[in-house]
């Protein structure tokens, strides 16, 4: 072959680096060279720095705030308190969950670390000195850290709504009660359980933890008083929503607000909400006429911005003697902290928790969730999962294990016996979800075979015998999980945030020389959108991914979108990208037909060109078509080659997976070692296998953290006990095991390219896999349920309570 020979079709496909290509991440060049541009890298002329005086108490009346000494500190320009914000009606702000939240302490504080005053200074050093000089008179009040106690207590946490019997999500039955949200048929469920041959009942606690992105939250607000424009750079997972909220709160018209999310160092749900720091920075900038920066430190982040989980899940699951599940009942006591600031679609105060029937064909089910106020930080965000989906997956995967114990049955067999079969899709669950596609049995069998499941069980049985003979002090746990997620929120008919439908968008401009830029309503926080969305587009419009720029995060340039969380970017914005690409392709087809002097229907798309049907030697490449779009007058066709798509997904997508964790546990020290972790993910069509693998590794490592040690813990008077990395577990390479990844591929039937989303699957499936391994190690000795995190002392305590220490 000489240099002049035209590329083969395979070469042309490869040249696009489209769907299925493990294209290297284009973002990494700047990140690995320290050339990223994060919020704290934004430095504007004359910029000031603001930071908070925070409450040392979990519950106290604030009798006085004295700012005189602080204002004497060199460099301190202003100290804002609730009194200063009140005339602007900004001392409280609405939350995403229909509640309201204090921006600055208004008469009392409700959690340790709560924002009390905002000190504005010339730099962060002066601000810190100013904070130290603010004097606050606190009067301590009784503290409630237990949601069950809170529902019984006379202590009123939220005096502002003490008399309201109706909340944003229905009736409130106690002054510390937020809502009761229910789904399913409780009477039928109770009947199924009462008449069942076997019932397993258990309280499953998913402890409070925190998304803890390495980059903490922060912003730079800059009010230009001359042209009336407000620019806010911030760590926002949903920049357009922030713009709308900022407009509604401040009264500044939305066209005069520009919100920019620059590079974001991880979000994991922590950067979805609106925080007092954003509001105070904006107010301070309006007051001073100068840009104001606010950046959390690590302790602020862990103490005050959104936590995750904290669900007490009381379950009952019933089955026939031979293991066919007949019903599932779940009541959740949900600790929401001091304000209900969950980031869920408006109509779902418990998120999509009612995906808790999991991968199983359960005929009847009921879920009730009681939201409760306590003296803890507000939040309740989806930490690397779709809304409350990790809680749901953990719940059902624990209940399956408990049922297996009750039945005396192998847990793998019990799962297989109850999986929704491939021929049942689309499948409507007892709690109302329509699962789009799946093939659970195939995935499960592949997983069991890959780890030699039967061999592992034999080894485990031998180990138990050896342990009983005193030959070893280590037990072997085999943690099983088959999870089903629900991601890609969501259809506008039932999913909105503050009234904004949860569609997403893509706008494409193809340049005359055949390269392109696409802008989306989402924002990458490490997911690699600039890499993968270009691949979707490359396959759709035949322009190499390397010739496509992806841009997100600037509300002045990007089309409106609801942002990135809940694995929604690929299911929603990815779909919008494909649909916008198809509009480009449709126009390109007309142009190609004109150039080739044939009818539109006589040309067809082929990789990177349109060819005349039956005469592939007659073609126009996309580059030629793009050029023609800008320099030829084509009858009936507007110049240019651009398209916009706003995509309202017809349904969620339902990724699934089979995970197996093999763990060694030293019963004397509680130390564990993960010997093997196998993760099979089915995320539908795979856009970039390398990026998927990276997502899976990251999600599994966060799952490891949560299951094995990470927690937000408070003592009985509401002191935060885990506010630094000394105590808040973030695994290093040392603690992280080697993962084996695998896949099956069951495309979503309703998504334009069949993709389902994957970023959160490994956290959703990983947590129960690690936790089940711990439980399974002790199953032979009678363990049914032990709450996470499974750190060393708690694992030791399991062994101790089972009498294994002699």
């Amino acid at each position, binding site marked *: 072959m000489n240099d002049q020979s035209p590329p083969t079709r395979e070469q042309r496909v490869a040249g696009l680096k489209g769907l299925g290509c493990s294209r290297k991440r284009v973002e990494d060049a700047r990140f690995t060279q320290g050339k990223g541009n994060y919020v704290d890298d934004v430095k504007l002329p004359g910029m000031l720095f603001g930071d908070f005086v925070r409450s040392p108490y979990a519950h106290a009346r604030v009798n006085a705030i004295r700012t005189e000494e602080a204002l004497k500190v060199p460099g301190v320009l202003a100290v804002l308190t609730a009194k200063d914000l009140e005339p602007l009606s900004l001392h409280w702000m609405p939350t995403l969950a229909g509640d309201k939240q204090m921006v600055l302490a208004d008469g009392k504080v409700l959690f340790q670390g709560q924002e009390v005053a905002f000190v504005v200074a010339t730099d*962060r*050093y002066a601000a*810190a*000195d100013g904070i*130290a000089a603010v004097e606050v008179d606190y009067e301590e009040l009784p503290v409630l850290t237990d949601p069950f106690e809170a529902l019984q207590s006379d202590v009123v946490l939220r005096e502002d709504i003490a008399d309201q019997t109706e909340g944003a999500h229905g009736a409130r039955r106690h002054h510390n009660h937020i809502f009761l949200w229910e789904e399913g048929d409780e009477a039928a469920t109770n009947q199924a359980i009462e008449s069942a041959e076997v019932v397993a009942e258990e309280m499953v606690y998913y402890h409070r933890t925190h998304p803890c992105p390495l980059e903490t939250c922060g912003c730079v607000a800059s009010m230009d008083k001359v042209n009336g424009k407000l620019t806010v750079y911030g760590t926002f997972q949903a920049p357009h929503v922030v713009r709308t909220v900022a407009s509604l709160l401040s009264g500044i018209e939305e066209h005069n607000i520009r919100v920019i999310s620059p590079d974001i160092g991880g979000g994991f749900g922590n950067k979805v909400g609106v925080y007092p720091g954003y509001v105070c920075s904006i107010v301070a900038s309006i007051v001073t006429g100068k840009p104001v920066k606010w950046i959390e*430190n*690590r*302790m602020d982040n862990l103490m005050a911005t959104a936590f995750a989980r904290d669900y007490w899940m009381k379950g009952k699951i019933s089955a026939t003697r031979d293991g066919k599940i007949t019903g599932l009942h779940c009541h959740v006591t949900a600790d929401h902290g001091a304000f209900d600031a969950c980031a869920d679609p408006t109509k779902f105060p418990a998120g999509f928790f009612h995906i808790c029937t999991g991968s199983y064909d359960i005929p009847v089910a009921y879920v009730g969730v009681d939201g409760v106020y306590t003296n803890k930080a507000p939040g309740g965000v989806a930490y690397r999962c779709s809304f409350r989906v990790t809680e749901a997956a953990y719940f059902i995967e624990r209940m399956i294990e408990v049922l297996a114990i009750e039945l005396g049955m192998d847990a793998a067999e019990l799962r297989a016996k109850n999986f929704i079969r491939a021929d049942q899709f689309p499948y409507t669950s007892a709690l109302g979800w329509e699962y789009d596609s799946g093939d659970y049995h195939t995935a499960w069998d592949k997983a069991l075979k890959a780890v030699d499941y039967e061999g592992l069980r034999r080894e485990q049985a031998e180990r138990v015998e050896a342990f009983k003979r005193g030959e070893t002090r280590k037990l072997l746990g085999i943690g099983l999980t088959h999870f089903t997620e629900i991601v890609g929120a969501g259809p506008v008919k039932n999913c909105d945030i503050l009234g904004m439908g949860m569609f997403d968008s893509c706008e494409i401009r193809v340049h005359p020389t055949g390269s392109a830029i696409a802008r989306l309503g989402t924002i990458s926080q490490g997911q690699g959108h600039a890499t993968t969305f270009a691949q979707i587009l490359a396959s759709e419009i035949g322009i190499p991914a390397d010739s496509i720029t992806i841009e997100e995060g600037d509300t002045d340039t990007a089309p409106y979108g609801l942002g990135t969380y809940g694995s929604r970017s690929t299911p929603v914005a990815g779909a919008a990208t494909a649909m916008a690409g198809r509009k480009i392709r449709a126009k390109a087809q007309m142009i190609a037909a004109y150039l080739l002097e044939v009818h539109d229907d006589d040309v067809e798309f082929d990789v990177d060109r349109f060819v005349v049907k039956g005469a592939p030697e007659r073609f126009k490449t996309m580059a030629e078509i793009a050029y023609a779009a800008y320099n030829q007058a084509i009858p009936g066709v507007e110049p240019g080659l651009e398209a916009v798509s706003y995509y309202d997904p017809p349904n969620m997508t339902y990724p699934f997976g089979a995970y197996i964790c093999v763990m060694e546990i030293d019963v*004397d*020290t*509680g*130390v564990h070692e993960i010997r093997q972790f196998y993760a099979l993910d089915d995320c539908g069509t795979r856009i970039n296998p390398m990026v998927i693998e990276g997502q899976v590794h990251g999600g599994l490592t966060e799952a490891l953290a949560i299951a094995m*040690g990470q927690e937000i*813990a408070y003592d009985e008077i509401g002191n935060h*006990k*885990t506010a630094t*990395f*000394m*105590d808040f*577990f973030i*695994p*290093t390479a*040392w*603690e992280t095991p080697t993962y084996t990844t695998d896949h099956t591929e069951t495309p979503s039937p309703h998504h334009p390219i069949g993709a389902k989303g994957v970023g959160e699957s490994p956290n959703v499936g990983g947590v129960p896999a690690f936790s089940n391994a711990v439980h399974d190690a002790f199953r032979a000795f009678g363990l049914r349920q032990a709450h996470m995190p499974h*750190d*060393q*002392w*708690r694992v*030791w*305590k399991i062994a*101790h309570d089972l009498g294994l*220490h002699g």
Partner: protein
Amino acid sequence: MIPAAFDYHRPADVASAIALLQEHGDGARALAGGHSLIPMMKLRMASVDHLVDLQDIDELKGIAITGGKVSIGAMTTQNELITNDVLAQAAPILREAALQIADPQVRYVGTIGGNVANGDPGNDMPGLMQCLNATFTLVGPDGSRDVAARDFYEAAYMTEREDEELLTRITFVAPTGGYAYEKQKRKIGDYATAACAVQLSKQGGECATAAIAMTNLSDVPVFSEAAGAALVGTACDAGAVKAAVAAALEEIDPMEDNRGPVDFKRHVAGVIISRAIERAWSRA
């Protein structure tokens, strides 16, 4: 996480450093690697008006081994302890222990002098130095004095060192026989849940000498003479190890923290002590 303003001093010799400490009294603190002091300043839990940085003082650096005696300057970093092959020959337990301290970044900056002088019960070197029966040299306005590591610690962060003194040097006789530093921690970078240093020697199949000290199991490092004595004259068989562990556990007083409750810590301490003895014996 921003400290209050302070004056920064960087003397080039011990005498100047002591003069600064004398001049500024309570408001002055010596800075070694800074891994304990700087976070405390950032949290504004330590108020320091004058920070006396010791890093330019050459006489506080270096490892010398002569005539079976090891002498380590206080400003020697943990990384230097790890990478010094002569020291690893003379007292391999130091490398084994230093490798279990924090992480490489910390060890490049953290010093042995800071580690032993701070009096933090979580630090690994104090227990190890008690195990080795090391001597700390303290230099102050009135000259130099030596204090045994086993007599140095009074309570958490309270030591024999006077405010105007610097801990300049650590010396000990190169040990012989088997050794082990066993440590349980939650993760890389953590302090010990329980840790134990053992150095023992063997003669004719019996334990001739044994020194056992523990980390983070009381508000001071714990050297247990009785535990060592329980091993001497035995073949370190199961019964002897059990007796040594029992003796050691008599002398600890762990506190509940996020690592776990007291009964857990006592149990783990027993496991760690016995593993340390067994490993040291296997090397003797």
